[in-house]
């Protein structure tokens, strides 16, 4: 009898342990992030008049952290771009427009003076002043911050607070991309006291932007609410934005269809799924990404430019566009058409025309008449995987037998950094300034030159482009560089795809563009 009672007691204790282990902790851990007043999303209970101005956005990934200076993940940027502002912004025609800076002047090649907007308030209620600009850039330049944008502003020598609303940057040397780089969120203006209180900005957010971080429940949702003190008085129209993490594509579509979310981002292949659905509109814009096939130039077979050119001739770019993007992409080089004046037209270049004969000739000239075995490492995205399979097939024609290695993101970045790949297919972003598009990837010291590519002429042009402030001259420099790089084929570039937002018709006044993809300031829900 005793034994029974004892063991029952033990069992109960064990079960309790399991339950309380989770239950007990929950109460203390779950509640601080979750607001009580948040109304449960319920599709059945749509009020008839005046829908709540809540934008529901079904996103594909969990934000990694919210520090605009150290995080570049799309899932994070998407959120903190609503929270933070930069000094200046760029419009669709790549003209600079005021943001936190009302106006600016450039007395000489090395000096930039910004006049700040007055009365702009951080979400904690304190006014944003020149000190904050100085602090933010000093934070970025401090190696301990490990800011991603450090190289963007490395040329800055001093930051001077002239008065509360005037700040002066002095550069060490002329740096043409400086203004463009200021439009990047890498240069977001953050308040000192919030950073110091929290040691970093990973879990907290306090900016000057149109929306305020209210709640972030990991792997679940992020909720932003309207900033009532936003410096553009009439903006934003929305009361809040709710981001729901929905990793699965079919779930996102289903949720959009039923109106549980208003906005999702999907590849071209999904367009046909919502065709004929009157509740959903598709908004497209030209991305400034491009699809590439990179080579490891340490390997003998890829050292020979003829092999690389042969591969360029072997590739049928239009076929890739048709199959992977349903035709919805533009043949492009590494400065895609979205870059406007900086972009060179690659489509008509000879190296872009499929020519198997020529390719085979080049292969045998290079000593590979029968081709060779190699591998293509591909990243996690569907379009890249698809392109990999097609490239594999196309390269067979010139005797190159490639095995595909699907890499998940960690492995991909690893292969990228350690140059452990042979060939690698992926999607790179060209940025907003040609300096990034060209020098970053193809100058000998470019921090994203993972190919082992080096051409002194290209390096010289890159150095020149950096300091050439005259835009016309600069354009010439970069076009020449593009020509040189194209001829060397350190990568094969294929296409710059369109990107798509699938939008419920309830969501009004939304228009994504290449350089301003998620501006929800004018958006309303009807």
């Amino acid at each position, binding site marked *: 009898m005793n034994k029974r009672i004892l063991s029952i007691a033990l069992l109960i204790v064990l079960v309790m342990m399991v339950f309380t282990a989770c239950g007990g902790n929950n109460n203390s851990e779950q509640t601080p992030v979750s607001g009580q007043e948040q109304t449960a999303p319920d599709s059945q209970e749509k009020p008839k008049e005046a829908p709540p101005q809540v934008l529901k956005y079904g996103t594909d990934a969990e934000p990694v952290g919210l520090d605009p200076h150290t995080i570049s993940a799309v899932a994070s940027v998407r959120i903190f771009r609503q929270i933070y502002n930069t000094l200046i912004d760029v419009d669709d025609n790549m003209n600079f427009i005021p943001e936190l800076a009302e106006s600016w002047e450039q007395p000489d090649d090395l000096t930039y003076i910004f006049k700040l907007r007055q009365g702009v308030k951080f979400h904690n209620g304190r006014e944003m002043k020149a000190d904050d600009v100085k602090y933010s850039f000093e934070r970025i330049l401090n190696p301990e911050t490990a800011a991603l944008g450090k190289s963007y502003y490395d040329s800055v020598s001093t930051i001077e607070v002239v008065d509360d609303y005037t700040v002066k940057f002095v550069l060490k040397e002329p740096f043409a991309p400086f203004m463009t780089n200021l439009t990047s969120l890498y240069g977001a203006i953050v308040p000192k006291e919030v950073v110091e209180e929290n040691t970093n900005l990973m879990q907290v957010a306090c900016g000057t932007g149109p929306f305020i971080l209210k709640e972030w429940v990991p792997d679940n949702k992020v909720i932003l609410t309207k900033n009532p003190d936003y410096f553009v008085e009439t903006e934003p129209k929305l009361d809040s934005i709710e981001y729901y993490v929905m990793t699965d594509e*079919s779930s996102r579509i289903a949720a959009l269809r039923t109106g549980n979310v208003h906005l999702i981002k999907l590849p071209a292949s999904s367009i046909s*799924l919502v065709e004929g659905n009157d509740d959903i509109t598709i908004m497209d814009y030209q991305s400034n990404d491009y699809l590439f096939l990179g080579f490891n130039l340490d390997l003998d077979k890829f050292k020979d430019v003829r092999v690389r050119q042969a591969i360029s001739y072997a590739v049928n770019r239009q076929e890739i566009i048709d*199959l992977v993007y349903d035709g919805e992409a533009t043949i492009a080089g590494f400065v895609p058409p979205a870059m406007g004046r900086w972009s060179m037209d690659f489509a008509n270049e000879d190296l872009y025309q499929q020519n198997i004969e020529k390719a085979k000739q080049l292969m045998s000239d290079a000593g590979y008449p029968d081709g060779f075995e190699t591998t293509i490492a591909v990243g996690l995205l569907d379009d890249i995987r*698809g392109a990999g399979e097609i490239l*594999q*097939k196309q390269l067979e024609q010139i005797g190159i037998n490639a095995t595909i*290695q699907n890499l998940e993101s960690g492995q991909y970045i690893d292969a990228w950094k350690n140059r452990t790949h042979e060939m690698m297919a992926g999607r790179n972003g060209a940025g907003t300034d040609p300096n990034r598009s060209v020098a970053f990837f193809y100058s000998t010291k470019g921090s994203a030159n993972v190919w082992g590519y080096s051409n002194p002429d290209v390096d010289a042009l890159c150095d020149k482009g950096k300091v050439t402030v005259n835009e016309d001259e600069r354009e010439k420099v970069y076009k020449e560089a593009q020509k040189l790089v194209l001829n060397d084929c350190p990568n094969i570039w294929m296409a710059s795809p369109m990107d798509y937002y699938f939008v419920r018709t309830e969501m009004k006044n939304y228009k994504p563009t290449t350089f301003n993809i998620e501006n929800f300031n004018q958006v309303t829900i009807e």
Partner: protein
Amino acid sequence: MKNIIEILKGIINIIKQLLKDPIGRIGFIGVFIIVLLSIFAPKIAPYDITEMFTKSKLVSPNGEFIFGTDNFGRDVFSRIIYGAKVSLQVGIISVGISATFGYIFGIVAGYFEGVVDSIIMRFMDVLFAFPSILLALFIVSVLGPSLGNTMIAIGIVNTPVFTRTVRASVISVKSMEYITSAKSIGLKPINIILKHITPNILAPFTVQATLALSGAILTEASLSFLGLGIQPPDPSWGSMLSESRKYMERAPWLAIAPAVFIICTILSFNILGDSLRDVLDPKLKL
């Protein structure tokens, strides 16, 4: 030689018995067809599996493409046939791995007991405690995704089950009188294991193997879903099914074909396993 003939006779006898039972017949025939498909895949498949008919992408099933084409304009039927080969290969090799290790560990643990047994079984407990899909995911992330590594991962994940099955059988067989008498006349352990114990644990072992095979095919499908299964252009049913999810509305045949084949194969193996159990171990027949 004589032994081989004996074994062959035994197998034929088992097959005969299997075919007597109508359900067993279905299982056997199903497995047989799949094996045939995978052996003769190159002969049966009408097209090259990587051939892309760019003009006919996502075509629904018709006379030219029996199961339609996929998003790259590849013939689904041919890919399914080749998929049989890949899926079966994954199943057989991964089960082979876990069966071999399971057999060795199980025999050693069950026969020698004591410390060796404790060590082996604790190690198996360790492996067993990992959620299998996460363990497989781990292993594939470490080794890199490829056909071989997928099979190794699934093989490792299944090892504890085999070890336990074998060990339990060994322990129960060991206590039987004929083993005691074999020991008493001074037979070496290795001989006892090979000649006396092994034949007696074949029944649960075989049944476990057929069931594990279907499990392996499913695990491969799950790994494919997470993007770490078989690498293209090799078509496995799992990877075809997980890729087809995006086209389920637009091109349902892309999902239906692999799904039907996966289900039929697993059904066949499970039925075969059940019937084999009945034939090999009449005690369990209900």
